[in-house]
Protein backbone atom coordinates (compact mmCIF):
# COMPACT_ATOMS: atom_id res chain seq x y z
CA UNK A 1 0.00 0.00 0.00
CA UNK A 2 2.81 2.37 0.92
CA UNK A 3 4.40 2.00 -2.53
CA UNK A 4 1.28 2.92 -4.46
CA UNK A 5 1.27 6.45 -5.82
CA UNK A 6 -1.00 8.75 -3.87
CA UNK A 7 -3.80 10.58 -5.68
CA UNK A 8 -5.24 13.57 -3.87
CA UNK A 9 -8.69 14.80 -4.88
CA UNK A 10 -9.76 18.29 -3.82
CA UNK A 11 -13.54 18.37 -4.15
CA UNK A 12 -16.07 20.17 -1.97
CA UNK A 13 -19.18 18.40 -3.33
CA UNK A 14 -19.92 15.35 -1.13
CA UNK A 15 -21.91 13.64 -3.91
CA UNK A 16 -18.97 13.87 -6.28
CA UNK A 17 -16.58 12.63 -3.62
CA UNK A 18 -18.92 9.69 -3.09
CA UNK A 19 -18.99 8.79 -6.81
CA UNK A 20 -15.23 9.11 -7.10
CA UNK A 21 -14.70 6.89 -4.09
CA UNK A 22 -17.25 4.36 -5.34
CA UNK A 23 -15.53 4.24 -8.70
CA UNK A 24 -12.15 3.91 -7.03
CA UNK A 25 -13.35 0.99 -4.91
CA UNK A 26 -14.46 -0.83 -8.08
CA UNK A 27 -11.18 -0.15 -9.87
CA UNK A 28 -7.92 -2.07 -9.65
CA UNK A 29 -6.78 0.52 -7.12
CA UNK A 30 -3.43 1.22 -8.69
CA UNK A 31 -3.02 4.19 -6.41
CA UNK A 32 -4.07 5.28 -2.95
CA UNK A 33 -6.80 7.88 -2.80
CA UNK A 34 -7.15 10.80 -0.41
CA UNK A 35 -9.89 13.43 -0.41
CA UNK A 36 -9.57 17.01 0.72
CA UNK A 37 -12.80 18.98 1.03
CA UNK A 38 -11.31 22.36 0.21
CA UNK A 39 -8.03 24.08 -0.65
CA UNK A 40 -7.16 24.83 2.95
CA UNK A 41 -7.50 21.17 3.91
CA UNK A 42 -5.41 20.19 0.87
CA UNK A 43 -2.61 22.51 2.01
CA UNK A 44 -2.73 21.02 5.51
CA UNK A 45 -2.54 17.52 4.05
CA UNK A 46 0.36 18.49 1.78
CA UNK A 47 2.29 19.64 4.83
CA UNK A 48 1.45 16.59 6.91
CA UNK A 49 1.40 13.60 4.57
CA UNK A 50 4.03 10.93 5.15
CA UNK A 51 4.36 10.44 1.37
CA UNK A 52 3.97 13.13 -1.23
CA UNK A 53 1.15 12.73 -3.75
CA UNK A 54 1.86 11.84 -7.39
CA UNK A 55 -1.28 13.46 -8.82
CA UNK A 56 -3.93 15.93 -7.76
CA UNK A 57 -7.44 16.26 -9.15
CA UNK A 58 -8.57 19.77 -8.31
CA UNK A 59 -12.01 21.31 -8.54
CA UNK A 60 -11.88 24.76 -10.15
CA UNK A 61 -14.67 26.15 -7.98
CA UNK A 62 -14.06 25.74 -4.27
CA UNK A 63 -15.35 27.67 -1.28
CA UNK A 64 -12.77 29.96 0.31
CA UNK A 65 -9.46 29.64 -1.50
CA UNK A 66 -10.41 28.64 -5.05
CA UNK A 67 -8.79 25.98 -7.21
CA UNK A 68 -6.55 28.31 -9.22
CA UNK A 69 -5.27 30.00 -6.05
CA UNK A 70 -4.30 26.60 -4.67
CA UNK A 71 -2.70 25.74 -8.02
CA UNK A 72 -0.65 28.98 -7.91
CA UNK A 73 0.60 28.13 -4.41
CA UNK A 74 1.62 24.66 -5.60
CA UNK A 75 3.49 26.05 -8.62
CA UNK A 76 5.30 28.62 -6.47
CA UNK A 77 6.46 25.99 -4.01
CA UNK A 78 9.86 24.41 -4.66
CA UNK A 79 8.57 21.34 -2.84
CA UNK A 80 5.31 20.92 -4.76
CA UNK A 81 5.88 22.41 -8.18
CA UNK A 82 6.44 18.96 -9.74
CA UNK A 83 2.93 17.81 -8.78
CA UNK A 84 0.70 17.13 -11.82
CA UNK A 85 -2.66 18.83 -11.30
CA UNK A 86 -5.74 17.96 -13.35
CA UNK A 87 -8.38 20.64 -12.92
CA UNK A 88 -12.05 20.04 -13.47
CA UNK A 89 -15.12 22.22 -13.63
CA UNK A 90 -18.78 22.02 -14.50
CA UNK A 91 -18.49 25.33 -16.35
CA UNK A 92 -15.63 25.00 -18.82
CA UNK A 93 -15.65 28.44 -20.41
CA UNK A 94 -12.73 29.26 -22.71
CA UNK A 95 -11.39 31.90 -20.29
CA UNK A 96 -11.46 29.47 -17.38
CA UNK A 97 -9.65 26.77 -19.34
CA UNK A 98 -6.90 29.13 -20.51
CA UNK A 99 -6.58 30.64 -17.04
CA UNK A 100 -6.05 27.16 -15.59
CA UNK A 101 -3.37 26.24 -18.16
CA UNK A 102 -1.62 29.59 -17.83
CA UNK A 103 -1.32 29.02 -14.12
CA UNK A 104 0.16 25.57 -14.51
CA UNK A 105 -2.70 23.09 -14.72
CA UNK A 106 -1.53 19.89 -16.42
CA UNK A 107 -4.96 19.18 -17.89
CA UNK A 108 -8.53 20.39 -17.71
CA UNK A 109 -11.58 18.13 -17.65
CA UNK A 110 -15.28 19.01 -17.79
CA UNK A 111 -17.17 17.63 -14.83
CA UNK A 112 -20.43 16.17 -16.13
CA UNK A 113 -23.75 16.36 -14.31
CA UNK A 114 -24.81 12.86 -15.22
CA UNK A 115 -23.62 10.11 -12.86
CA UNK A 116 -22.86 7.63 -15.66
CA UNK A 117 -20.78 10.18 -17.59
CA UNK A 118 -19.06 11.17 -14.39
CA UNK A 119 -18.05 7.58 -13.76
CA UNK A 120 -16.83 7.15 -17.35
CA UNK A 121 -14.76 10.33 -17.30
CA UNK A 122 -13.36 9.64 -13.88
CA UNK A 123 -12.29 6.13 -14.96
CA UNK A 124 -10.71 7.43 -18.15
CA UNK A 125 -8.82 10.17 -16.37
CA UNK A 126 -7.74 7.74 -13.72
CA UNK A 127 -6.59 5.15 -16.30
CA UNK A 128 -4.64 7.60 -18.41
CA UNK A 129 -2.58 8.96 -15.56
CA UNK A 130 -2.04 5.60 -13.91
CA UNK A 131 -1.43 3.38 -16.91
CA UNK A 132 -0.23 5.50 -19.81
CA UNK A 133 1.42 8.55 -18.30
CA UNK A 134 4.49 8.36 -16.09
CA UNK A 135 3.83 10.07 -12.78
CA UNK A 136 6.55 11.47 -10.56
CA UNK A 137 7.37 8.97 -7.85
CA UNK A 138 8.18 9.83 -4.28
CA UNK A 139 11.95 9.75 -3.95
CA UNK A 140 13.77 9.34 -0.64
CA UNK A 141 14.00 13.08 -0.12
CA UNK A 142 10.23 13.28 -0.64
CA UNK A 143 9.41 10.81 2.12
CA UNK A 144 9.28 11.87 5.72
Amino acid at each position, binding site marked *: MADKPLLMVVEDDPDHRFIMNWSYQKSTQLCSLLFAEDAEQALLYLDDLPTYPSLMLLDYQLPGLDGVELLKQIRRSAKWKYLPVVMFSQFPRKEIIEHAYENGAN*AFVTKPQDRGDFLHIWNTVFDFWNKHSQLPKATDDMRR
Partner: protein
Amino acid sequence: MISPIIATIPLPAYSKPLVILIVEDDEDDRELLQIAFNEGNYKGELVFANDGEHAWQLLKNGEVDPSLLLLDINMPRLNGMEFLERIKSSAEFKALPILMFTTSSNETMIRQAYELGANSYVVKPQNFQRLTEIWDQVYSYWTQMIQLPFRE
Protein backbone atom coordinates in the same frame (compact mmCIF):
# COMPACT_ATOMS: atom_id res chain seq x y z
CA MET B 1 -5.39 -2.02 -36.41
CA ILE B 2 -6.98 -0.98 -33.17
CA SER B 3 -10.31 0.73 -33.13
CA PRO B 4 -10.00 4.31 -31.87
CA ILE B 5 -12.27 5.57 -29.12
CA ILE B 6 -13.27 8.45 -31.39
CA ALA B 7 -15.51 6.03 -33.25
CA THR B 8 -18.02 6.27 -30.42
CA ILE B 9 -17.39 9.66 -28.89
CA PRO B 10 -17.97 12.69 -31.12
CA LEU B 11 -15.32 15.38 -31.15
CA PRO B 12 -16.30 18.68 -29.55
CA ALA B 13 -17.58 21.17 -32.11
CA TYR B 14 -14.42 23.24 -32.39
CA SER B 15 -14.14 25.52 -35.37
CA LYS B 16 -10.36 25.57 -35.23
CA PRO B 17 -8.82 22.44 -36.75
CA LEU B 18 -6.79 20.26 -34.41
CA VAL B 19 -3.06 20.58 -35.03
CA ILE B 20 -0.57 18.51 -33.06
CA LEU B 21 3.05 19.58 -33.25
CA ILE B 22 5.49 16.69 -32.83
CA VAL B 23 9.07 17.60 -32.01
CA GLU B 24 11.19 14.58 -32.86
CA ASP B 25 14.66 14.38 -34.37
CA ASP B 26 14.47 10.74 -35.47
CA GLU B 27 13.16 10.51 -39.02
CA ASP B 28 11.94 6.91 -38.57
CA ASP B 29 9.97 7.86 -35.45
CA ARG B 30 8.35 10.77 -37.26
CA GLU B 31 7.35 8.47 -40.11
CA LEU B 32 5.96 5.78 -37.77
CA LEU B 33 3.88 8.34 -35.90
CA GLN B 34 2.46 9.64 -39.16
CA ILE B 35 1.61 6.06 -40.24
CA ALA B 36 -0.08 5.35 -36.88
CA PHE B 37 -2.03 8.58 -37.25
CA ASN B 38 -3.10 7.81 -40.82
CA GLU B 39 -4.08 4.21 -40.05
CA GLY B 40 -6.34 5.27 -37.20
CA ASN B 41 -8.15 7.80 -39.41
CA TYR B 42 -7.81 10.40 -36.68
CA LYS B 43 -9.13 13.92 -37.08
CA GLY B 44 -6.68 16.77 -37.30
CA GLU B 45 -3.18 17.26 -38.63
CA LEU B 46 0.30 16.36 -37.45
CA VAL B 47 3.07 18.89 -38.00
CA PHE B 48 6.65 17.83 -37.38
CA ALA B 49 9.68 19.73 -36.17
CA ASN B 50 13.16 18.17 -36.26
CA ASP B 51 14.36 19.58 -32.94
CA GLY B 52 13.54 22.16 -30.28
CA GLU B 53 15.01 25.06 -32.20
CA HIS B 54 13.03 24.18 -35.32
CA ALA B 55 9.82 23.93 -33.23
CA TRP B 56 10.54 27.26 -31.53
CA GLN B 57 11.00 28.98 -34.91
CA LEU B 58 7.76 27.48 -36.26
CA LEU B 59 5.86 28.77 -33.22
CA LYS B 60 7.52 32.19 -33.08
CA ASN B 61 6.98 32.79 -36.79
CA GLY B 62 3.34 31.75 -36.53
CA GLU B 63 3.86 28.95 -39.04
CA VAL B 64 2.02 26.49 -36.82
CA ASP B 65 -0.74 27.06 -34.26
CA PRO B 66 -0.96 23.77 -32.35
CA SER B 67 -3.39 22.76 -29.63
CA LEU B 68 -1.04 20.10 -28.33
CA LEU B 69 2.68 19.38 -28.56
CA LEU B 70 4.52 16.06 -28.24
CA LEU B 71 8.16 16.47 -27.28
CA ASP B 72 11.14 14.15 -27.48
CA ILE B 73 14.00 14.84 -25.05
CA ASN B 74 17.27 13.83 -26.67
CA MET B 75 17.63 16.12 -29.66
CA PRO B 76 20.41 18.25 -31.21
CA ARG B 77 20.52 22.08 -31.03
CA LEU B 78 17.75 22.70 -28.46
CA ASN B 79 16.89 19.54 -26.53
CA GLY B 80 13.46 18.72 -25.10
CA MET B 81 14.12 19.96 -21.58
CA GLU B 82 15.60 23.24 -22.84
CA PHE B 83 12.68 23.71 -25.21
CA LEU B 84 10.20 22.91 -22.45
CA GLU B 85 11.78 25.49 -20.15
CA ARG B 86 11.69 28.11 -22.91
CA ILE B 87 8.04 27.47 -23.72
CA LYS B 88 6.84 27.42 -20.12
CA SER B 89 8.75 30.66 -19.39
CA SER B 90 7.14 32.37 -22.36
CA ALA B 91 4.03 34.44 -21.73
CA GLU B 92 2.89 33.70 -25.27
CA PHE B 93 3.13 29.91 -25.20
CA LYS B 94 3.13 28.82 -21.55
CA ALA B 95 -0.46 27.52 -21.70
CA LEU B 96 0.30 25.18 -24.63
CA PRO B 97 0.00 21.60 -23.33
CA ILE B 98 3.26 19.69 -23.76
CA LEU B 99 3.43 15.92 -23.53
CA MET B 100 6.90 14.51 -23.12
CA PHE B 101 7.15 11.58 -25.54
CA THR B 102 10.46 9.88 -25.06
CA THR B 103 12.07 6.46 -24.62
CA SER B 104 13.51 7.42 -21.23
CA SER B 105 11.66 6.38 -18.08
CA ASN B 106 14.32 7.74 -15.75
CA GLU B 107 12.55 8.88 -12.57
CA THR B 108 14.76 11.93 -12.08
CA MET B 109 14.03 13.03 -15.62
CA ILE B 110 10.29 12.49 -15.16
CA ARG B 111 10.27 14.63 -12.05
CA GLN B 112 12.43 17.30 -13.70
CA ALA B 113 10.07 17.45 -16.68
CA TYR B 114 7.07 18.02 -14.41
CA GLU B 115 8.99 20.67 -12.47
CA LEU B 116 9.69 22.49 -15.72
CA GLY B 117 5.98 22.44 -16.55
CA ALA B 118 5.43 19.34 -18.71
CA ASN B 119 1.73 18.52 -18.82
CA SER B 120 2.29 14.79 -19.07
CA TYR B 121 5.06 12.28 -19.59
CA VAL B 122 4.54 9.28 -21.84
CA VAL B 123 7.16 6.66 -22.57
CA LYS B 124 7.56 6.07 -26.30
CA PRO B 125 7.46 2.34 -27.05
CA GLN B 126 9.94 0.71 -29.41
CA ASN B 127 7.53 -1.56 -31.27
CA PHE B 128 4.98 -0.31 -33.77
CA GLN B 129 1.95 -2.20 -32.43
CA ARG B 130 2.52 -0.76 -28.98
CA LEU B 131 3.12 2.66 -30.53
CA THR B 132 -0.30 2.59 -32.20
CA GLU B 133 -1.91 1.59 -28.89
CA ILE B 134 -0.19 4.33 -26.93
CA TRP B 135 -0.91 6.84 -29.68
CA ASP B 136 -4.60 5.90 -29.54
CA GLN B 137 -4.71 6.41 -25.78
CA VAL B 138 -2.83 9.70 -25.93
CA TYR B 139 -4.88 11.06 -28.82
CA SER B 140 -8.23 9.95 -27.44
CA TYR B 141 -7.54 11.21 -23.95
CA TRP B 142 -6.14 14.59 -24.93
CA THR B 143 -8.63 15.35 -27.67
CA GLN B 144 -11.80 13.74 -26.28
CA MET B 145 -11.59 13.93 -22.52
CA ILE B 146 -9.39 16.94 -21.97
CA GLN B 147 -10.41 20.50 -22.68
CA LEU B 148 -7.49 21.99 -24.56
CA PRO B 149 -6.74 25.70 -24.55
CA PHE B 150 -6.67 27.84 -27.71
CA ARG B 151 -9.52 25.96 -29.35
CA GLU B 152 -12.65 27.77 -30.37
